[in-house]
Structures are given as structure tokens and as C-alpha cells.
């Protein structure tokens, strides 16, 4: 059983939903990332999503674009991202870590080399936003060979046939994109999400996480009520951006914001 599967099994047993915060590796500075990851876990994260910075993040809104730019300006690479996970694992063996990024850095490192290094660093899954299942055969084979879960997106525009196809390629969980738009948008319609999730459950027993556009604790709780996991990115990354010059307050505020979401989700 993979670390991701184990975590979802445990949550199901406890009757809780997963909270999955996203930060970009190296944002606001490379030295902060591992510590931020631990902070997020202490504040209630069940799984961590770590963004691999990319020069052309086409599916991201301005907040995560700027996070990528900050990290790249400081020279953060995929290899360094893997090193950060390795460091994180020295003090946390249980919290699953999923890398989220765009295909090109993975392709340039080589799928085999990436999967091997990632597995040994303690990564549990990978989501490459611009890799639909149609093009994913080689990447998925490499991930599976090293016991990593390939995570795929399902979108509001995905037809039932596509949902089938995506779910049969995925493991760990599937990631439902809550709206037509980029990350950090603000137009989430929970009822529409609920309807779509019902349809997706016809195709898969995999847990379904929902992300894109979850800005506050209230929305997190409402989304958690209809899904298995809530992914929060831009709302947290925005905090890091605002508090970049006050490292102590940055960790504190990040923890408080996530803890609010945790509490709202668990209370629901």
C-alpha cells in the first residue's frame, strides 16, 4: 500500500477528509521550504503538494506564477526540489508528498532517472499538469516501476469517456479541477462540483481531491463535505508573498490559516 493510499485509508477510518496544502519549492526562498512543509503538517495537512517551479506555468494564475518566478530567480531546480523532499523525510516518514509541475523539467531529467530519484527521496506521487493520459504512457510506466502514484486532473469539461480513461491511468487519488480557469480563481460553485463528483464516482473508487479556487475555511469545509480531499494553493502562497520579509510571522500566519481550514473541515 502506498503512503497516499495508507493516508486515505486512515482518514476514511477516522471519518475525516484530507487537507492538501500546496507551496512551491523554493518560495519564498529555498532555505524556507522544508521548514514550511513541517509547519503545514503540524497545522493539519494530511498530504503535501510541492510545486516544481517552471518558467511557463500555463495553468496557473498570477499568484503561483509569481511563486515560480521567485523560486527560479533563486535557481531552484527539479533536483533541488527532490533534495528538499529528502530532507523533509528525515523528520517525517508518514506524510505523503506529491510533486506538482509541468512536464518539461521531468522530461529533461529523464522519466526513469526522475522516478528513481524521487522514490529514493521519499516522494509519493507526481502530477504534471500538462500531461493528459493520452501522452502519459512512458511517464506513468516509469512512476509505477518505482512505486510512485501518477495523479491526474479531471476537469469540468471532461466527458464520461475521458473520466474513465483518466481514472484508469491514475492511482493514489484523482484531482478534480473545480472550475474552468487557472489556479487561484474565485468562481467556485460547490453545487456544480458536487454533481460532477457524483459522476466521477461512477468511474472510480479512487479518492477525489478538489482544488483550484478554494480561498477560505468556509469554502474548504463545503468542498470537503462533498469530496475526499481539499487542495489549497494560491490562498497560502499569497500569504508567503505578503510576508516574505517577516519569516517568523510568515510561518505563524501560514499555520493559523491552514489550521482554520482544518478546523472548519473537521467541524462540518
Amino acid at each position: 500500500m502506498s503512503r497516499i493510499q495508507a493516508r486515505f485509508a486512515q482518514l476514511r477510518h477516522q471519518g475525516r477528509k484530507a487537507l492538501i496544502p500546496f507551496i512551491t519549492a523554493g518560495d519564498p526562498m529555498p532555505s524556507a521550504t522544508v521548514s514550511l512543509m513541517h509547519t503545514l503538517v503540524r497545522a493539519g495537512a494530511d498530504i503535501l503538494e510541492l510545486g516544481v517551479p517552471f518558467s511557463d506555468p500555463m495553468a496557473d494564475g498570477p499568484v503561483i506564477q509569481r511563486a515560480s518566478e521567485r523560486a527560479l530567480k533563486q535557481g531552484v531546480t527539479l533536483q533541488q526540489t527532490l533534495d528538499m523532499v529528502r530532507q523533509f523525510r528525515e523528520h517525517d516518514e508518514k506524510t505523503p508528498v506529491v510533486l506538482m509541475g509541468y512536464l518539461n523539467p521531468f522530461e529533461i531529467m529523464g522519466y526513469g532517472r526522475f522516478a528513481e530519484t524521487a522514490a529514493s527521496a521519499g516522494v509519493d506521487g507526481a502530477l504534471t499538469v500538462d500531461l493528459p493520459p493520452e501522452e502519459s504512457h512512458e511517464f506513468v510506466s516509469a512512476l509505477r516501476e518505482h512505486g510512485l502514484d501518477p495523479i491526474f486532473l479531471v476537469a469540468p469539461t471532461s466527458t464520461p469517456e475521458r473520466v474513465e480513461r483518466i481514472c484508469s491511468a491514475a492511482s493514489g487519488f484523482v484531482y478534480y479541477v473545480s472550475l474552468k480557469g487557472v489556479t487561484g480563481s474565485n468562481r467556485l460553485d460547490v453545487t456544480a462540483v458536487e454533481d460532477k463528483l457524483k459522476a466521477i464516482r461512477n468511474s472510480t473508487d479512487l479518492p477525489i481531491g478538489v482544488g483550484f479556487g478554494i480561498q477560505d475555511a468556509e469554502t474548504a469545509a463545503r468542498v470537503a463535505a462533498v469530496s475526499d480531499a481539499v487542495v489549497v494553493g494560491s490562498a497560502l502562497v499569497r500569504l508567503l508573498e505578503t510576508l516574505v520579509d517577516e519569516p517568523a510571522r510568515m510561518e505563524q500566519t501560514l499555520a493559523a490559516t491552514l489550521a482554520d481550514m482544518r478546523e472548519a473541515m473537521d467541524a462540518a
Partner: protein
Amino acid sequence: MSQKVEPIRPQTITPLPDAGGHFGTYGGRFVAETLMEPLDELSLAYARYLKDPEFLRELDSDLRDYVGRPSPLYFAKRLTEKLGGARVFLKREDLNHTGAHKVNNTVGQALLARRMGKTRIIAETGAGQHGVATATVAARMGLECVVFMGAEDIERQAPNVFRMKLLGASVVAVESGSRTLKDALNEAMRDWVTNVDSTFYIIGTVAGPHPYPAMVRDFQAVVGRETREQCLAQTGRMPDALVACVGGGSNAIGLFHPFIADRQVAFYGVEAAGDGLETGRHAAPLCAGRPGVLHGNRTYLMEDRDGQIIETHSVSAGLDYPGVGPEHAWLKDTGRAHYVAATDTEALRAFHDLTEIEGIIPALESSHALAYTAKLAPTMGRDQTIVVNLSGRGDKDIQTVAALEGISL
């Protein structure tokens, strides 16, 4: 005027791409899931209208009466004499309405957009030629139009920005990344994914996710079809070499594609060498890049060793792009086409030469093709023929050229 004019229409001559949009290992569809279904719809609509006589009639008639096709194939006699080798012909895409080849494609995609019931058009633009060509067809059809343009390009292409605004388009300055064409494309994709129900994204080059590389090629292939016929009529034989500049590569594919099966016709795609390939400051992924995935397709890219896309450099905004159409990547690997590069300096010299001896001001993009022609022609026999795609006119560039030469207008 007894010259037989064949119906102008998109037609696929080679079986590529495959159903998934692949040219060998290149091309494909690398986008976020939200866009997969809209791209399927676009593929289906395109395949359907490609066979629809009414659509093709309207396209032919627009290309003839609105764009002004066929464009002439002009024998550049004095340029030929100066170069002292092969006879040089210019395919005069600069004479099209809006002043470049870009309109061949926007006319086609706009007709498709209307048939698909879309009310809003978006586009990315580098030099502004594709933006102008898109704003033009949107104005003509009464469709809302938003053009994304890198903030740096807006500064160096002010006349085209004003033209787009006159045509009723909104021009959005893109401040992210390197503030050039690649960032404009990112932003257009973000807009599309957000407004996908109402919006048709008119990509201006033979790159992007399937079906764009094939569709844009098919709309641009009118250039090569006319060239083939005109060359036979005017010289009695096929050309020996075709030369075109390559940024994304739409004018080059348009010229090359109808000749792919004519193995005796050599293809030369000319990339922007900027300050020189050896300096790293250039925009020549085919000459000096390597394969990767960007903007929806696998192709040659300008990237660093960690797979990040790097900034490109070219005096020509229209060639200042880190990728290239996947069919060019395939033509390179199969050896069917040769890819070379011309520096800023070489392009500027060619710009002045053509202006002075032929009375034609070429776009800085097309000047790269002319710069390589100046090297190629002397190596060929006087009985041989080169056709250069004069993809656009240079009026938009006179401020850039003046500034480079220390002249304020």
C-alpha cells in the same frame, strides 16, 4: 489572364500528423485536462468543415476578394544580378491585406469560429502581425477580440498596437516572464481555459496543441500551392530551393508543405541567430536547441539544462520565440528540410539591400530568409531557381531599424 486558378483550399498532402497530432515523436497535445475536450471539439469541427463545400467556397472567396490572393510570384531581377547565382523569386505575401501571410490563417479560423458559434476571439501576437490579422477578421465579422502581447513587444511594435486598437480589439500587455511572445501565449491559454465556452483561440503559428499545427499549416498551404503553380507557369519548371524564415514556422510550412513529395525541391528554414548562435543570445531552437515540451506540443526548444525555457533574442519580434512548430522538428530530424540561421546584422543588411535595389521594404522576419538567400544563391547555377517567402512587409519595422541606426523619427 488565362492562368488556371485552382480552388484555394486546405488540403493534407502527407498523412501526418497521426490522429493524436504527432509528427513522429513531435507534436501531440500537452495541455491541462480542461482544454482536452474543447480541443477535441475543435478537431472534429475542423475535420468536418474541411470537407464542407460551402465552407470552402466562403474561404476561397474571402482569400480572393478580401485578402487579395493569389499573391504574385515576383522575379527579383536586380537582386538576382547582385547575388550572381540562382534566379531569385519572391512570393509576395507582403502584398496581402494587413501586410503579411498571417491573414491566410486568421480568415480560415474566424470562419470556423463563427460556425462553431463562438462570439469571442482571442489571439497571442509577437510582432503584432498575427494580432492585426486577427483583429481585422474579428472586426469584419463583428466578433469581440482580445489580443495578448508581451509588454516588451508592445514597446517595439507601437504601430501594430495602434492598428489593433483602431480595429476594435483590446490589447492586453503581458508583464509575466520575459514579456514577449511566449508569455503572451501562456496568457492567451489562461484566458481560453477560463472562457472556453464562448471563446475561440486563434493561434497564429504552426505550434500549440493538436489540431493547431495541422490546421494552421493547412490554412497557410495556399502559399505553397500558388507558388508551385506560378513557378511552373513562369519558369516552366519546379523551383530548386525554397527559403523562408522560421519563428513558430507558419510561413515556412505554408510554402514547403505542398512540395514535400517533390524531393528535388530543397527546403531552407532560416531561424533568428540574434547576436550569433555562439553567443547563446538567439532564437534558433532547431539549430541550437533540443526537444522538450512547451505550449501544448513536443518540439525543439530553447531551454536550460534543467528544462526551464530561456529568453530568446532577435531583432525581429516575430521570430523571438523559444519553440517551433512540431512539423519543422520532424522535417529537421528526417532531413527533408535544412535549418540554418541568420544574425540580426545579416538580416538588417538584407533588409536594406532589398529596399534599395528592388524597392520592397521587407519585414525584419522575412529579412532573415533574404539574408540566407544572399549566401545560398551564389552557390547555385544561373539556371536554378530559389523562391523566397517574403512573408511580410517592413513598414511596421521602420522605427526599430531607425532606432538601431541612431535615427529618431
